[in-house]
């Protein structure tokens, strides 16, 4: 291929690519925020669960707050390891509209071990019981812990699979969700 043929090819490709960009633009793109899915950018799947003391929480009722949904189990070592940091930062940020919903995947846990666990770590945030596994399935949990940071509009801003999450990681994600 000689020089003029190459230059012609470059220009044709660049013009065709530019035209493709213009033609494929989506001025009225709906985005992902209107769809519910357990992934960053999507609206968080809603749920209603009860705490160990029988209090009921519905995720969508907490719109206007930044919410951390943490799926965990008592037998899971990284879940245990990240609890103190979550408790500390819950105390630090709760006045700014930060809520922690610790959803125990009760379907794969022993409910009798939950109260001593909460006592051991001095947990004061709501701990919800997923007896049926519906929330565990709705959030497509494959590893514990799995943590979802949800902003004030109910959109998931970040998903952290596995753990334990460090205090610094929690801080950066909480501050992002609170914006």
């Amino acid at each position: 291929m000689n020089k003029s043929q190459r230059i012609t090819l470059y220009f044709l490709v660049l013009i065709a690519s530019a035209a493709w960009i213009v033609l494929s633009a989506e001025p009225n793109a709906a985005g992902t925020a209107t769809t519910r899915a357990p992934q960053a950018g999507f609206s968080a799947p809603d749920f209603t669960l009860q705490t160990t003391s029988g209090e009921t929480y519905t995720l969508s009722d907490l719109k206007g707050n930044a919410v951390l949904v943490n799926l965990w189990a008592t037998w899971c070592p990284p879940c245990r390891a990240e609890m103190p940091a979550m408790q500390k930062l819950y105390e630090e940020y709760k006045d700014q509209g930060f809520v922690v919903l610790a959803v125990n995947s009760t379907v794969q846990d022993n409910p009798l071990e939950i109260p001593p666990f909460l006592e051991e770590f001095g947990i004061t945030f709501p701990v919800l019981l997923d007896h049926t596994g519906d929330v565990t399935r709705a959030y497509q949990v494959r590893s514990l812990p799995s943590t979802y940071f949800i902003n004030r509009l109910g959109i998931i801003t970040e998903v952290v699979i596995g753990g334990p999450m460090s205090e610094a990681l929690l801080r950066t994600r909480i501050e992002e969700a609170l914006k």
Partner: protein
Amino acid sequence: MLATFQNLFAPPRHMILLVLAAWLGLTLAEKYAERHRISKDDLNNITFYGLIAFIVGGRLSFVLQNISAFIKSPLGVISINPDLFDSVGGIIVAILVAFAYGQRKNLALWSTLDALTPFFAVIAVGLGLSHLAAGTAFGNPTELPWGIDLWSATRHPTQIYATLASLLTLGLIWFLKAHPRPGVLFLIFTAVTAFSQLIIHTFRADTPLFLDGYRQAQVFAWIILAVSFAALEARLKSETK
């Protein structure tokens, strides 16, 4: 089959695919390094320092961008959480360190980039597969028969499009690996990758939009494509003088 793959490499195990790709890519690059007049040792060293710089640079960049969080929790700087990472910062630091190493060892820039091209090409395949495993880089909803069920919809399998495009690109650079002009192999790889990303991003649902619905990634890919063409022509011209 897709469900089995996604279960097997569910996050955080999807990172294994990237590590495997890096290892395979380096093995492949090593095999043909001397064809580009780069020794295996130099290739291994530049990749090793680049990867270390990517890891350290990515963490440092993240720390600097979130300095207030780390002032309150300083031990977080050495935390093992892979999420405390800025990949763009990591790439910039890796390029700077690899460039500095190349200068110190008097390695020819274009020949080194050519020698590293198989490594980049295999990493691109691994990246597509890791996105498929994690469900990231997902596509727009579609009714096409090859759509995959992901995030509450049947979507374009953009991760599979990206993996196939990367495999085709790998095949192309394999075919062109004996090109005698330094830089041509790398620049063809860059141009083809930019062009394929420009097309694939049309079907991506997670691409940020700007102005009147234009996709940022497509515009960025177009600029890379134009720069690659200009550099390619300059390389061919310099060699024919």
